[in-house]
């Protein structure tokens, strides 16, 4: 049974320097003030230790995607505070958030979302395109592809890759900027069990070998079992049940 993350007190969060993520009374409310108002996150406070691999679980509509969006610097909170690697990401501009996404975060999605016109290698290098790609970047990308077992598929286009291989490319893409944290949204959702296990094994290996924190959103209890901690959300609040 995986340990659960509990709703933390402010002092507990303040006193720990080991949390890569801290949230203080985080709220996310959609359509505020309208009849269709939805409170996706309701006073969520917790911390995630650096170097852990954790799972975020919960039924549909429980707020896990909202939480992931805020922590991944892709959405703003309605209230409360979120600290990522010492930076209050709830007070940053869109431009500053994109810098954080570029430098500190790696994303893996259920749908692989690779650019069809680019090779596996070029897809891995996608985050670096706006700043220019050096020879060292290419070598690094090749090494990462080797890490995920795809060095010999580097020149292949996404349509020439299997589902598992595509997901490995997205893992490699998430790693190209040497992130401090990886957010994986249902990374095994589109894969068969065996391939899903392989992907999780890669994420775990990365977590253990490089110390990168991995946050996996998943419905699958088999995925939870492979993580260090579980954050269970129900109706926008942390649940212990």
């Amino acid at each position: 049974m995986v340990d659960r993350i509990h709703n933390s007190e402010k002092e507990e969060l303040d006193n720990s320097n080991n949390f890569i993520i801290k949230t203080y009374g985080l709220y996310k409310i959609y359509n505020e003030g309208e009849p269709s108002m939805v409170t996706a996150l309701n006073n969520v406070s917790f911390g995630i230790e650096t170097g852990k691999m954790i799972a975020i679980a919960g039924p549909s509509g429980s707020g896990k995607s909202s939480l992931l969006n805020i922590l991944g610097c892709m959405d703003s909170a309605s209230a409360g505070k979120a600290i990522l690697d010492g930076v209050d990401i709830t007070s940053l501009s869109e431009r500053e958030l994109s810098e954080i996404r570029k430098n500190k975060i790696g994303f893996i999605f259920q749908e692989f979302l690779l650019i069809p016109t680019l090779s596996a290698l070029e897809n891995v290098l996608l985050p670096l395109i706006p700043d220019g790609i050096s020879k060292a970047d290419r070598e690094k990308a090749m090494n990462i592809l080797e890490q995920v077992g795809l060095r010999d598929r580097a020149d292949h286009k996404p349509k020439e890759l299997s589902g598992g291989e595509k997901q490995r490319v997205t893992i490699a893409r998430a790693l190209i900027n040497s992130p401090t944290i990886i957010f994986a949204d249902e990374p095994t959702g589109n894969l068969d069990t065996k391939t899903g296990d392989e992907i999780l094994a890669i994420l775990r290996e990365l977590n253990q070998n490089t110390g990168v924190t991995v946050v996996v959103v998943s419905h699958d209890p088999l995925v939870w079992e492979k993580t260090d901690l579980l954050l269970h959300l129900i109706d926008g609040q942390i649940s212990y049940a």
Partner: protein
Amino acid sequence: MVFQTIRFALKNAFRKKLVAALSITGIAIGIALMVALSSASAGFDNILGETVAATVGDVEITEYNTMITLSQLPTNISDIIKTIESSDKILAVCAEVVVSNFVQFADNVTIQVGMAPPGSGMSVMALGARGVNLDEDALFEGLTTKLTEGRIFENDFEIIIADYILEAGSEVFEFGKSFDLMINYTYTVPIKIVGVFDTGEDMTRVLEPSFIMSVNTSLQINSMTLPFEQTGYNVAKVRFDSESVEETKSYVEELEALEPKLDVTSLGAEIEGMGDIMANFQTFQTILTVIVIVAGGMAIVVAQLMGVSERMKEFAIMKATGWKNSSIFLDIILESITIGILGALVGFGLGAGLIFIVQLGAGQTFVTITWQIVLKVLAYGLGLGLAGGLIPGIRAANIKPMEVLRAT
């Protein structure tokens, strides 16, 4: 840095090959028309400019209020002209006789000369004949100084003819041959072709007189065909040492003040007046340009909006991986510019090809592709790309990545 973005944009610009091809075709057709019109306009402008420059100091004088064919200038017209105050500015004077009915009465003239058959009003205008003084014509470096074959006329009823008449392959007008000039259908005068003069390669060469003869011969022929005996000249040409059409106009005023009263025409001013036609042409060109820009821009907007709609998830993932709004906007703009510039270049090729074919058919260079046109085409391609990519670029840059990804 931008190189990678350009490379990325180039790859994306042709993801929907058919849409890209149709956009490029749309732009290309518009640009091709524009290139053709601009080149024609530039060509005509050149011709006008050159002609004005060549004739800036030239004026033509006829009897006041009289048709040129009936005009009778005094035999001492050259001396009268030289009495004006600005006579020191006169470089040359040449009085000529216009033989108005020459071709109409040439026996057996056929359409093989490239003009209308005898009796047609066209032949008078098109195949003009003149009687000139050799020394005066030489001052103008006139056609009598441009013999390519034979010799100058020395005796009465000897003529020299324009090279284009020979090129037309007429059976009547051949070098060294004689033909009978029919006068009032009852009397003929034997005319001998003793020389051929060069009229150049320009299209306007057909406006040069086709036949040149001595003043004496021309007066004899005119006196036989006109209802009176002609003794004077029909027209006098004066060349002034003038820098501008405006300056020449001041000399025209001096000539108009002479006695007897004269009709004086500045050739440069006449040709410059044709600039109004060019102005209308340029207005049409401007309208066409606006249509090209709007239609081309719309083609890119539609193609890019389609592309952006289909690629929302990609932009979401790009933003998720740290692409800034400005980087995504730049990507879309570069894709649009690629389409715009390519369309412009293809259009330029089509337009230039069209011009080439038309010129081949005409056998004459009357249109000009200037570097300004090339720059204009590139600027339009760039402008179309920028304008067409603006809305799709803003749309792509402002997507909320998680909203897009959540919607899947």
